[in-house]
């Protein structure tokens, strides 16, 4: 069984590789200002006050759901069953794999169409299906590109954001061997046209369609997806069987609540007022319906989320996966999503990953933040991401997982910081030493034990005696 493996413990090496990868850096540079600028315009267009008030409503709505999660999940299940669908509870990713495989086998599936779903990534569904002789076909353009490249998504809403246009061209020339090798693929539109033609043909082959869900509505039993390509709709309505994969916190109570989330979701994500397609699905095709699947299944994944309830990490479950936090994160912008080493990158991943795969495995991520606070500033659900990353650092510190050198340095520093008189002496002495090393040059190119600072930049030398000493001498 291949659950989604993590390279998170190698975060440092991953980020060095990412910095050295010129294609990646060029892709990150072109994505950098697009998302940020578009969200800012969307917020300004709505009015900053209204936008921020909507964020409060989103936060309150999700807090209410989390406080009553069990009740809403039961209500949702009742409604799905009443509309003729099936609900499968998956406690772990392995359970979800088994459930999905079982449904596919019963449907006699050889090919499965996939809309974009991060829960499927979290559960390693593609590998599991492939290992069991079923071919998953990603229908989202970005997902299709990374499937060709045998990669995982590097962003939760723009999975191929790390790939440059020339790289896509190269991939298409390699993969679409049935087409003329000398065809014109110079423009972006020609690439899009080719992808659409290739993917359209595949929609009709599949027996099962798998999609994710941006929300599950308790009062109606509906699942909601938003896409810009319409691929989700085709994936779910053409095959005989539709499987929705969603995690338990995707619940909202009513249609009106779903509308609240929709108003803030696309604006935060891509700066659109609404995504191009917003699709509500409810049960299988009824008599008289012109289309729709014969079977409708929902796989509800927990995979560690219920353990977050009632802890300092509960707020993370408000996340609606808009991606704004990573779009605005300077660390994400510098190293890209793959460096994070598991399904969820950026600030939301830095909180969620240790929750889902353990802090021993995911511990780097909450540390790899400057706490600049931009993520919390843009999060539509007002999730205090830096605060929760700090909570992970506290857990690591309590459990002695903090690196020894850090603990040691911190211990000495803390000892002095709590003793002002000795601290005065120590800082005066230390600064006098640094000044000597600086020999009047105003800066130091190398400082013993401070290589990780001076490898990339000079260390400004202390100006003179400490402020406290000078102040005492003057007054």
């Amino acid at each position, binding site marked *: 069984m291949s659950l989604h493996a993590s390279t998170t413990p190698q975060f440092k090496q991953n980020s060095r590789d990412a910095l050295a990868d010129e294609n990646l850096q060029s892709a990150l540079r072109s994505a950098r200002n697009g998302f940020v600028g578009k969200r800012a315009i969307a917020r300004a267009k709505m009015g900053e006050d209204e936008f921020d008030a909507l964020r409060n409503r989103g936060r309150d709505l999700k807090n209410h759901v989390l406080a009553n999660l069990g009740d809403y999940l039961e209500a949702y299940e009742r409604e799905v069953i009443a509309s003729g669908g099936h609900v499968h509870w998956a406690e772990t990713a392995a359970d979800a794999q088994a459930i999905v495989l079982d449904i596919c086998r019963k449907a006699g599936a050889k090919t499965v169409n996939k809309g974009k779903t991060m829960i499927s990534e979290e559960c390693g569904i593609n590998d599991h299906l492939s290992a069991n002789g079923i071919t998953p076909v990603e229908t989202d353009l970005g997902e299709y590109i990374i499937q060709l490249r045998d990669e995982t998504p590097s962003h939760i809403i723009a999975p191929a954001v790390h790939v440059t246009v020339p790289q896509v061209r190269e991939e298409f020339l390699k993969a679409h061997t049935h087409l003329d090798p000398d065809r014109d693929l110079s423009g972006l539109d020609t690439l899009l046209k080719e992808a659409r033609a290739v993917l359209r043909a595949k929609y009709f082959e599949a027996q099962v369609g798998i999609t994710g869900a941006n929300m599950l509505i308790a009062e109606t039993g509906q699942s909601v997806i938003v896409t810009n390509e319409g691929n989700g709709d085709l994936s779910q309505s053409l095959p005989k069987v539709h499987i929705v994969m969603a995690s338990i916190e995707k619940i909202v109570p009513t249609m009106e609540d779903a509308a609240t989330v929709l108003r803030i979701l696309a604006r935060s994500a891509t700066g659109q007022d609404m995504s191009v397609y917003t699709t509500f699905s409810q049960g299988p095709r009824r008599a008289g319906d012109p289309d729709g699947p014969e079977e409708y299944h929902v796989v509800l994944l927990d995979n560690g989320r219920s353990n977050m309830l009632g802890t300092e990490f509960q707020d993370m479950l408000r996340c609606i996966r808009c991606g704004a936090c990573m779009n605005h994160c300077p660390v994400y912008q*510098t190293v890209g999503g793959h460096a994070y080493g598991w399904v969820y990158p950026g600030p939301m991943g830095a909180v969620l990953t240790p929750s889902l795969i353990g802090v021993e495995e995911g511990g780097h991520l909450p540390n790899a933040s400057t706490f*600049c606070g931009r993520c919390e500033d843009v999060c539509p659900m007002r999730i205090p991401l830096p605060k929760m990353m*700090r909570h992970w650092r506290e857990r690591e510190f309590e459990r002695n997982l903090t690196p020894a050198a850090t603990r040691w340095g911190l211990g000495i520093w803390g000892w002095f910081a709590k003793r002002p008189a000795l601290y005065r002496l120590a*800082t005066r002495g230390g600064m006098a030493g640094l000044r000597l090393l600086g020999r009047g040059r105003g800066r130091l190119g190398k400082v013993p034990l401070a290589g990780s600072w001076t490898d990339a930049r000079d260390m400004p030398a202390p100006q003179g005696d400490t402020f406290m000493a000078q102040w005492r001498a003057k007054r």
Partner: protein
Amino acid sequence: MPRVALFVTCLVDMFRPSVGFATVKLLEDAGCTVEVPEAQTCCGQPAYNSGDRATAAQIAQQVIVAFESYDYVVAPSGSCAGTIVKDYPDLVQGAWVPRAQALAAKTHEITSFLVDVLGVESVTADMPRLATYHDSCSGLRTLGVRDQPRKLLASTGVTVREMDEAEVCCGFGGTFCVKYPDISASMVADKVRHATDTGAELLLAGDLGCLMNMAGKASREGRGIEVRHVVEVLAGMTDTPAIGEPK
């Protein structure tokens, strides 16, 4: 006359005392009596952000005791002021909570104290130079410091030419810059490039951590931009060499 306690901050104390003296001058010019409590070391942020809550809480209590008797506490740093304002009330427990809240309510970053609390419209320095301003993260996002330094700078004759991504982190992040040096180095390279692209002769900011990071990168790359804390310019104290420059 308001009695103001100066929270010097550990980096200013050690590396750039002139920032402390410039802050004192600005406060005195604005009619404050300034005192510097002896029992100060650091705000405790290194411990707090490394997950060592217990040490951070002890340091917070020490700061509360040393500073709570003044009318105001002012720091030449949005980061340290932000820790006192936003984090102390969360960090301490029991009877310390109301005391932390009271301290938080009267603690300010220097430029926002001058503009928002004292209503200062202009300072006396005369500095007809071209500068660019980096918005340090905590000051900007925790305390809302953005327009205040620009307003005061305008009164000295400084022209601020905005750089791209002025509000994006410089990559300092306290211990981040030594824990993840490669990422930090790339971030500060971007920052210094954006700053020099404006053609400004001065790069200003309100936090010495960010300034040392940016100045160190600028000098390593031979960028030839003068890096200073904003209060040095506001107080007209630019006769000292810029950060990282020889005498």
